[in-house]
């Protein structure tokens, strides 16, 4: 049987000293932000904050200096991310570009694309969205139908992308389009493009989530022109590239920390001397938290060592998102609180935010079912 290998990760001293810098920066920048705001975590979008992070040299941390990066290690980046998330920093305006668009360009982009985009991403000036899902293509991503047809100097794109987070705020999207229809071979003929979201032929409409919040969008392309030099990678190589991109998306600490602010508020509410049952609930959650952090750190160590921990990353995300979803359940079960929006304690409001957003935790970045399929394949079952 093929199997996984989680080795204990260790953080080098430079990562721990970066941690102190990041903590000091966040304490100063975020000040006394309320828990229910912090709970938004990587959903919080704040360009001014992203520029400050860029000015500190903390976007594109591992990228080459010639593209505005800082050539530091993946483990330092790991610490930076976990501190941002644990503080509930509003990282969304640079999160996608730092995590996947930039690395994608580094790996598959042209020199001109790297020079044009990466330094501005690293300064926190450029914000990216992801154009993958379509109305008829969710988990079955390879079935997308948005067409990019060759015309002189580039492509004409027609079709619709959905669940495009922050498309209304971002500058660019990296989108997956069908450049060629190959009957019965849906994974072929796909290509990735850099799309200027402010350009002509593109209409962005809000998709409001169940809590009334607007972060998702529908992005409609109506013969929108995309120049040839904004195609990323070879024509037809989109599926392999997108798979690599999704691997960046799966492995980070954002896959187990989404509900940590609720756990923190629970501990605050219980005080220094909790009852027996409450103490046991907290202890169990902390045991899961500490274990997931070690697992996530282990994956970061494998990435730093140049390994390809796809199976391990899928395991962390599956276990981690389950943990994120369990916290609101457990808090509700323990205290019987009514989740609230506007009034009530910080705990009530944090619960109100997370109960409503928890369903998305095991959908975004690959559903639980897709991940379990990946794990089963890794175990040799399919």
């Amino acid at each position, binding site marked *: *049987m093929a*199997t*996984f290998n*989680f*080795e*204990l990760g260790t953080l080098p001293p430079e990562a721990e000293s970066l*941690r102190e810098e990041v903590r000091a920066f966040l304490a100063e920048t975020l000040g006394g932000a309320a828990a229910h705001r912090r709970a938004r975590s990587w959903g919080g979008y704040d360009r001014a904050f992203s520029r400050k992070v860029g000015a500190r040299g903390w976007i594109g941390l591992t990228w080459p200096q010639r593209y505005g990066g800082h050539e530091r290690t993946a483990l330092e980046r790991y610490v930076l991310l*976990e501190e941002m998330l*644990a503080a509930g920093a509003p990282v969304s305006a640079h999160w996608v570009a730092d995590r996947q668009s930039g690395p994608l360009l580094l790996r598959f982009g042209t020199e001109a694309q790297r020079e044009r985009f990466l330094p501005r991403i690293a300064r926190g000036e450029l914000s990216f969205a992801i154009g993958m899902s379509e109305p008829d293509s969710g988990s079955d991503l390879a079935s997308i139908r948005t067409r990019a047809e060759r015309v002189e100097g580039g492509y004409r794109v027609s079709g619709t992308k959905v669940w495009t987070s922050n498309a209304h705020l971002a500058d660019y999207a990296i989108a997956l389009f069908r450049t060629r229809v190959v009957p019965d071979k849906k994974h072929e003929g796909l290509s990735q493009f850099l799309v200027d979201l402010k350009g002509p032929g593109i209409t962005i409409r809000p998709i409001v989530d169940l809590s009334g919040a607007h972060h998702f969008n529908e992005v409609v392309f109506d013969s929108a022109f995309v120049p040839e030099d904004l195609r990323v990678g070879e024509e037809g190589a989109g599926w392999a590239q997108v798979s690599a991109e999704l691997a960046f998306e799966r492995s980070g600490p954002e896959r187990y920390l989404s509900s*940590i602010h609720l*756990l*923190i*508020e629970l*501990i*605050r509410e*219980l*005080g*220094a*001397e*909790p009852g*027996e049952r*409450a*103490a*046991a*609930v*907290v*202890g*169990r959650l*902390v*045991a*899961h*938290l*500490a*274990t*997931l*952090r*070690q*697992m996530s750190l*282990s994956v970061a160590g494998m990435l730093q060592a140049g390994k390809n921990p796809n199976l*391990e990353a899928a*395991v962390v995300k*599956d*276990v981690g998102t*389950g943990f994120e979803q369990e916290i609101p359940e457990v808090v509700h079960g323990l205290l019987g609180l009514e989740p609230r929006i506007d009034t009530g304690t910080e705990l009530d409001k944090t619960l109100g935010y997370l109960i409503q957003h928890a369903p998305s935790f095991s959908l975004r970045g690959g559903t639980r*079912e897709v*991940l*379990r*399929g990946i*794990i*089963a394949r*890794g*175990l*040799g*079952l*399919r």
Partner: protein
Amino acid sequence: MATELRQLLADTCARLFADRVTKELTESAEHGTWPAALWQTVEESGLTLPQVPEERGGAGGSWLDAHVVLTASGRFAVPLPLGETMLAGFLLSQAGIDVPLGPLTVAPVARDERLRLARDGAAWRLTGRAARVPWGRDAGHVVVAVAAGDGPTLVGLVAGGAARVTPDRNLALEPRDALDWDGAPLVAVAPAPALDADRIRALGAMVRAAQMAGGLESLLTQTARYVSERRQFGRPLASFQAIQHNLAVLAGHTAAAAMAAASAFRAAERGDPGFEAAVAKIRAGEAAGIGAGIAHQCHGAIGFTYEHHLHFVTRRLWSWRAEFGGEGEWSERLGRQVCARGADRLWADVTAR
């Protein structure tokens, strides 16, 4: 380099246990026969006291080596008191006492039991009762830890034959005996300032967590193999999505238990396993319960028979989960510590480990 040596150690354990711990041997041990030849081989291979200093009679390695051996012992359901011997050896070495050869165990293991030591001229004598002592009847020596008023914990070494033994056992038919001492003479006794009852219990919990992590690895391997071979409705069980997803869940719990246990042994090597041992016992215990359930479900009725070997692991998991404190005890203890530190210390404490 240390990692490669530990891989060699893991390979050595796997080869030895795969070769020697046959179904017949395990069954005979469960029927009460002490596997003397297996013990001798394992001891001669230097696997019984990996983390005890050489000058005290051990192999001079670290808790990380102990972790490797114990995980393998759990994976192969080795019917020997390896964890108990390592724990006892550690207590003795902490007290500066030489570690004797042969199987060892520790007492007391029940939460609120206290043994008493009394001076008798130049010698010391032990009195009291300890229930559920692992391998109590088979241990060549028993290592006892006795609280001595405000002073440091006293660690004593007493010969195995010095107690009246009332046999008892756990679900896996491993000996868990009641031992009674009535003024039994000690072979040696010395204070161990770094040890108290909580620390000893944490080390015991950590040992069981590693064994459970090994047991879960075995369940994952056995179950993946079984569902690939067994066919129903004209195709392998592994081709059914419901089965695949069950295996994925089992894999997640297996990975989590392994990570939590490994982390605890690293903390022990650094000197303070309190937090990580609690985490490991909670996480591995939960994984054991869920994992055993999934493994049995996927094996169907055949896995529920005595004839099939699945139960050699699952019965151990069900018992080990409770020994040295179940998830409830450890969760409550950890939760109290976390709350006493306060909400704003949580993240700093978790990342400091």
